[in-house]
């Protein structure tokens, strides 16, 4: 188990495994570089010769990547008769860096919606980092449902090389979450001229009816493309705001409106100004934008 490479432990708590799937969907050359650069000593779905008990006997770990929400309620969820919180605390005593992978690990995510258990939290909420002198950095939240695989890789590479990352108020890396999903969206011209679109179509903006949260969601989905080629909005699926703290919201595929006026408007613009601009923009009927891109 001795290694010259930085060690990575991937701990799974209350999760659907979606972030693991995401990691496995990383660009093959990047994933190969990752596996060659780090020693992934434990992942419940990927490694076979190490158990969680083995990991708990280790003295230290370089990177602890946590997937899934955490609960202290053993009746609700336990691993080896132990709560996910207890195990997390033990692992946290050993780690130099803790990274919450995905929205569930960051804030509780979809699991926090269960009314039967009000003790489901994100990593940062449930552990007191001041207790862990071994930690070299504050907890990094990589939000997303799932998180983009490249964001995971970029974060561990950055922390490994520079020992620190600039984080925003939600403890997300600024270089990955300063953009909005709207930036780089190929539908931006439809957005500007208020041309609405339909689910799954190449044409039109998904903000007005389909619930797209691109203009108010911090993420680089349209800048660092998924599988190097696409994104939800590029494929005709509205952004559901999965990198934000209020995810998952209700009725995510419809735009909440009051008397036809969107309840939420793009970040940073007062509603009065937004309504004024869009009212004018809708005046113009641009033939090119009302036609199919390809007949």
């Amino acid at each position, binding site marked *: 188990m001795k290694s010259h490479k930085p060690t990575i432990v991937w701990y799974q708590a209350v999760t659907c495994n979606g972030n693991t799937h995401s990691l496995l969907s990383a660009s093959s050359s990047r994933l190969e570089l990752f596996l060659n650069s780090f020693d992934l000593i434990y992942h419940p779905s990927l490694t076979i010769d190490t158990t969680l008990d083995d990991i708990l006997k280790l003295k230290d770990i370089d990177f602890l990547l946590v997937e899934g929400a955490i609960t202290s309620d053993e009746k609700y969820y336990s691993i080896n008769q132990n709560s996910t919180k207890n195990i997390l605390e033990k692992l946290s005593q050993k780690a130099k860096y803790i990274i919450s992978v995905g929205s569930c690990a960051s804030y509780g995510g979809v699991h926090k919606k269960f009314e039967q258990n009000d003790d489901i939290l994100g990593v940062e909420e449930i552990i007191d980092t001041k207790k862990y002198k071994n930690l070299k950095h504050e907890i990094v939240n990589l939000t997303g449902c799932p998180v983009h695989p490249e964001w995971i890789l970029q974060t561990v590479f950055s922390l490994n090389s520079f020992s620190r990352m600039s984080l925003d108020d939600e403890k997300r890396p600024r270089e990955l979450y300063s953009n909005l999903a709207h930036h780089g969206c190929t539908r931006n011209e439809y957005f500007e001229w208020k041309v609405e679109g339909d689910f799954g179509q190449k044409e039109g903006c998904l903000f007005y009816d389909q619930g797209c949260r691109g203009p108010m969601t911090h993420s680089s989905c349209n800048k660092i493309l998924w599988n190097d080629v696409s994104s939800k909005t590029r494929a005709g699926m509205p952004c559901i705001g999965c990198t934000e703290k209020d995810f998952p919201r209700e009725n995510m595929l419809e735009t909440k*409106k*009051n*008397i*036809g*006026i969107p*309840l939420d408007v793009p970040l940073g613009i007062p*509603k*009065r100004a937004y*309504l*004024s601009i869009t*009212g*004018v923009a*809708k*005046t*113009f009927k641009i033939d090119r934008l009302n036609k199919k891109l390809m007949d």
Partner: protein
Amino acid sequence: MENSLKLFSKKGFYNTTIPDIAKAMKMSVGNMYNYFSSKEELAKYAIKYSTNILAAELREINQMDISSKEKVYLFVKNYFENVKNSPEVVEYFLRVYLSNREVFKEGCEGFLCVGEFVTEVMILLDEGAQNKEFREQDFFPAFAMIMGCLGGFAFLSGEAVLDKDLLEYSDPIADNIYRALKYEES
């Protein structure tokens, strides 16, 4: 500008000439052209000017800490006071802007010249629906309910067919508008 609004409203767009307007504005025809390249351009400026007066008043009401119902009552009263005290502002809208659409076709398309006022109506409706005083419906029927009603009544006033003073109709009209918009428990 009020004088040109009065002239346009009284004589109609085509019967009003630039010399008429220059005279009313107490300036030479040559000087007029320093400001407006044509009668059409003046007419477009005039619609922005007149609706921006209404927009500023409605914005003030929108920013008050009162219920949406009270805002509707105040807005209607305000609008009728405008019709009574400055009839040219509303009459210009009804008798020139709505009646001579071809003049406003380029440069005043859609909401382009009346955008500020329409925005304030949007804010009024949006906030009313958000605080559950107004029921959910499409924007345009709600917009037409308010402005159709007010415009229609201003027209009746202009035709001098009303029995009573215009302001005496303010509350009943506001009541009608509010009832058409108000939230109903299902």
